[in-house]
């Protein structure tokens, strides 16, 4: 099934989470030879994993990772702007309607449906959160996969040669990609909707258990007063 999980909920799925970071090490370090770190547990994580991103994960029937990708809004720190501005003539991609999608990863154990599932997940996120585009850094050797699944990126910049070549791409979800994606997965739109709804808990913020009655002295938050209109403070 497809899961939509913010980073602070990953600890609720230890096997899924560990196998995702392990598979990222396999794909990006072992197979593609990217010069990025792998920790003592064999997990590939970077500083963007620490920004509480949203992951879309294809979970295999045994509970392990089949494929995944990571999303962050382009209005905050993203890889393309922080590290690849020079290959975009200094253009920074920044809009509430554009999110960055990175670490598109397929597990060596993946079933045939993994790539199509990720395309579906990206489409659901785009549709439900009213986005227009994704931007992302990718290995051009993956472009064939994207093309195969009907989500060919527009390449807006690249650097390096051969195995070191890296590209920045833009994606949108074409209307005709939906039926093809459902068909590849052998599911209906209703199934996809059910998967998304099943992720309700992992999409909302993790809330510590609340006492049913307030206890202790009230520590009232200071209400804004730096500006002269204290007439209608909210919260």
């Amino acid at each position: 099934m497809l899961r939509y999980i913010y980073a602070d909920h990953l600890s609720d799925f230890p096997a899924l989470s560990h196998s995702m970071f392990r598979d990222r090490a396999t794909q990006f370090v072992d197979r593609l030879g990217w010069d990025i770190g792998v920790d003592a547990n064999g997990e590939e994580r970077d500083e963007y994993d620490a920004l509480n991103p949203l992951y879309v994960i294809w979970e295999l029937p045994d509970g392990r990772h089949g494929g995944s990708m990571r999303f962050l809004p382009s209005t905050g720190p993203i890889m393309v702007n922080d590290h690849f501005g020079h290959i975009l003539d200094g253009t920074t991609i920044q809009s509430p309607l554009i999110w960055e999608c990175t670490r598109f990863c397929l597990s060596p154990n993946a079933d045939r449906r993994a790539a199509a599932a990720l395309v579906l997940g990206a489409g659901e996120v785009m549709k439900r959160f009213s986005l227009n585009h994704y931007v992302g850094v990718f290995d051009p050797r993956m472009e064939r996969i994207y093309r195969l699944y009907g989500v060919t990126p527009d390449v807006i910049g690249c650097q390096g040669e051969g195995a070191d070549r890296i590209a920045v791409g833009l994606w949108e979800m074409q209307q005709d990609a939906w039926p093809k994606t459902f068909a590849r997965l052998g599911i209906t739109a209703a199934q996809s909707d059910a998967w998304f709804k099943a992720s309700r808990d992992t999409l909302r913020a993790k809330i510590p258990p609340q006492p049913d009655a307030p206890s202790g002295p009230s520590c009232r938050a200071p209400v804004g007063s730096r500006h002269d209109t204290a007439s209608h403070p909210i919260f």
Partner: protein
Amino acid sequence: MASGLEKQLHLLEQATTLEHLQQATLHLRDHFGLAHFIYHWVNSVGERFGAGTYSSDWVDRYLEKDYLRMDPVILGCITRFHPTNWKDLDWSSKAAKAFLREAIDYGVGNQGLTIPVRGPSGQFALLTCNQTCDDPAWEHFIANHQQDLILIAHQFNRKALEFDTGFEAQAPSLSPRELSAIALLAKGFSRAQAAQDLSISEHTLRVYVEGARHKLGAINTTHAVARALSNGLIVV
């Protein structure tokens, strides 16, 4: 975007005081036909500000009971960056249910949508609108207006950052690609013509124009072109 909304957003852009933001929430509530419209933010040093249409009775009650500590909307949306239908929040505790019942008694809608905005240096904001209606009606509203509301949330946040002395208002600076895209549109090129002229796809052109729109604080492409011209960033 409807022209009425453009007018509201133009007023918002002119805002120089918190009172103006307050006015903007009233107009936007009426524009969208909502029960309430609220924008509130926490600045980089943790101070809270707000503008909104709630009654002072409800605001007083909220403060008196210190609901900030348990409000499922606040707790459920901080540390998130996607727009959230209140229906998807956790209302399961007895305290949350009682809170919602009380809020409704004070005129808060039973349906809500909250859009979180993550700003620089820990600055954080929520735009919330709510309405009294059934689930299908609210889903319909979200499908029609969510993207506009996301843009409005960021427009409010631009103002909040301007008001916060910790952030210097920066003159927008566009990259060469963004400038070329906007300049061609200013000359009256269609998107297709501009894309062809720049040897890029229309899809890519849209991203450059969208980036420029956001940096210029404009509400749509036409407005972005006008702002780039008036800022002297492009010359036609």
